[in-house]
């Protein structure tokens, strides 16, 4: 069986949705990281500017007015560090925080041009840091170059990023779950008419309803109506055909009866020949009409209750054979059904049971066994059917010119119907030495 529509829709939307959300998460994550780096750089830049504003020079030594704008530089382990260096001289200033922490500043002498910023990330031991470096021409007598370098631990920034990421993933996860669920509900709701239709078609097949209901959405309404029309048409033409066959049977058989009765009083030589030909005609008409008016295994229709059909036939036959005092025992599983036409089933079982009534001596046993197919066994204690004749009895009259006078074609008719149903008819010996007929119907 192919993947269901519901699964297809759900699979597609889930795939599209999750890749979209994954991409969105990735982009958001990257931009946030970028903006955090940017803000780190901005903050470091501010520190450099404030250092430049506060820088003093005395005794050819660098110094700073005591109250630097950023007092994080005075706190040990604050995570914020600064260094100022005069090029070409052993003159270096480092902030208190840098000195206590022991930050390795980077050497930019001669690499950076004046007026240029350089933003850099560096790993020192176990600590990641941002570094921002700036080189200026110091406006004193020598016009020396000064390098300002500020560093900040990445830890607080990373924490922010981590926090953001967590919220992002939770948020996106929630959105995914919500969307998939919404999609599931939408698909279920959207496909409900289809499921309802499938269910109704099943009911149609089982004969629990005559037609589809009328409340289908516009997309399915046309299909439902066409299906209804098709079924109605099929049933109409089936019953019309059957009616035609019955009329044909009636209009053929009554004249045959008349001819036969007329022939009986005729003592001439030819009447025997005519009578023989009449038998052939009768058998052909009976067999062909039975075959032609059989419906076969129907797709849409009631399942036939086998027990009910057998009950009715047995009651009818017991009326017709009431002077024989035949004991009929039924061992049928209750609720056994066959998909097909009731008349076809009655035709098969009727002929078989009639034979049993005709040939049995005292009793008939009707029993069933259902495995993959429905099996019905008819056993009697009559003379039985000779093993050599079994095959022939079933095929008798298959060709019209084979039919001989006075031979019954009941079993052959049944065999043909059974074949139409892809069933099987088997003759064997019953427990009392009579005939056992086994009818298997799928």
């Amino acid at each position, binding site marked *: 069986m192919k993947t269901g529509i519901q699964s297809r829709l759900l699979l597609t939307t889930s795939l599209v949705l999750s890749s979209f959300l994954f991409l969105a998460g990735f982009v958001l994550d990257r931009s946030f990281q970028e903006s955090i780096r940017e803000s780190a750089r901005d903050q470091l830049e501010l520190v450099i500017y404030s250092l430049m504003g506060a820088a003093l020079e005395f005794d050819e030594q660098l110094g700073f007015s005591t109250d630097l704008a950023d007092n994080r530089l005075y706190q040990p382990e604050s995570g914020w560090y600064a260094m100022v260096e005069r090029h070409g001289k052993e003159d270096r200033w480092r902030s208190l925080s840098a000195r206590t922490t022991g930050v390795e500043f980077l050497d930019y002498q001669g690499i950076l041009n004046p007026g240029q910023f350089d933003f850099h990330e560096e790993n020192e031991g176990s600590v990641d840091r941002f570094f921002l470096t700036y080189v200026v021409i110091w406006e004193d007598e020598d016009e020396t170059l000064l390098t300002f370098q500020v560093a900040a631990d990445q830890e607080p920034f990373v924490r922010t990023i981590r926090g953001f990421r967590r919220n992002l993933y939770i948020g996106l996860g929630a959105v995914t779950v919500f969307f998939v669920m919404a999609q599931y509900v939408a698909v279920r709701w959207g496909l409900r008419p289809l499921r309802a239709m499938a269910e109704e078609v099943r009911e149609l097949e089982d004969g629990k309803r005559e037609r589809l209901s009328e409340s289908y959405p516009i997309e399915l309404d046309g299909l439902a109506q066409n299906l209804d029309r098709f079924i109605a048409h099929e049933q109409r033409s089936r019953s019309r055909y059957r009616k035609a066959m*019955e009329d044909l*049977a*009636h209009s053929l*058989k*009554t004249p*045959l*009866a*008349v*001819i*036969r*009765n*007329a022939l*009986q009083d005729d003592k001439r030589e030819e009447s025997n020949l005519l009578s023989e030909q*009449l038998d052939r005609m*009768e058998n052909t008409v*009976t067999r062909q009409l*039975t075959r032609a008016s059989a419906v076969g295994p129907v797709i849409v229709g009631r399942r036939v209750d086998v027990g009910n059909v057998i009950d*009715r*036939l047995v*009651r*009818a036959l017991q*009326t*017709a054979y*009431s*002077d024989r*005092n035949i004991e009929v025992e039924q061992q049928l599983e209750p609720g056994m059904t066959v998909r097909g036409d*009731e*008349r076809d089933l*009655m*035709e098969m*079982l*009727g*002929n078989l049971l009639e034979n049993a009534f005709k040939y049995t001596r005292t009793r008939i046993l009707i029993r069933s066994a259902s495995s993959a197919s429905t099996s019905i066994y008819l056993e009697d204690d009559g003379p039985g059917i000779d093993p050599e004749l079994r095959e022939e009895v079933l095929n008798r009259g298959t060709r019209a010119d084979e039919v001989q006078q006075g031979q019954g074609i009941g079993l052959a008719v049944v065999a043909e119907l059974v074949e139409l149903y892809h069933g099987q008819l088997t003759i064997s010996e019953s427990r009392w030495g009579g005939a056992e007929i086994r009818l298997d119907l799928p």
Partner: protein
Amino acid sequence: MRILVVEDEQILQDQLVEKLKHAGYVVDAAGDGEEGLYYGREYDYDAAVIDLGLPKLDGIDLITTLRNEKRSFPVLVLTARGHWQDKVHGLEAGADDYLTKPFQMEELLARLNALMRRAAGHASPVLREGELQLDTAKKEVRVEDALVELTAYEYKVLEYLMMNASRVVSKTELTEHLYDQDFDRDSNVIEVFVGRLRKKLEPINPIRTVRGQGYRFNVETTA
């Protein structure tokens, strides 16, 4: 024995009537269901042969109506379609046996005979009462194993009385069941037949006269 035939095919109806009359039955024939119903209501029959495919009133409906009106005579249905559903419907409506067209006339006669015997409570075609034997198939009567020569009418009187052994049969009833409608219904004729019949059946005398009511078959009264 009076039999009703309801068959719409005129030639077949004629053949049936002829054969049945030839076999010694009194026959009324109807060409459609309504006419059949009229006859069935009007007369008390010993058996009926009813075709299932009838105009005006269907054979099934005819049987159902007759049974609802407590008409209990045995019914043999004829079906041209030969479908089991038709046979089952016919038997469920109250018919007692079926025959598929085309049929052998001998078969029909044998079935009718059996139906009437069954209705009278006899399983075998040979009715036995004491020293008296009546073979409904061969139409023979024996007393103490000796064949008794009877005319057709004498046989019919004896057969009817034996079939209805448990009750009193009036002369009018005998006339109705044994003779065609146009027959002169003089009850003296019946008395003459019964008188001759008694003489032929001697030494037994199974026919008892119930004063003012009719006759009754009773072997106990054998002399």
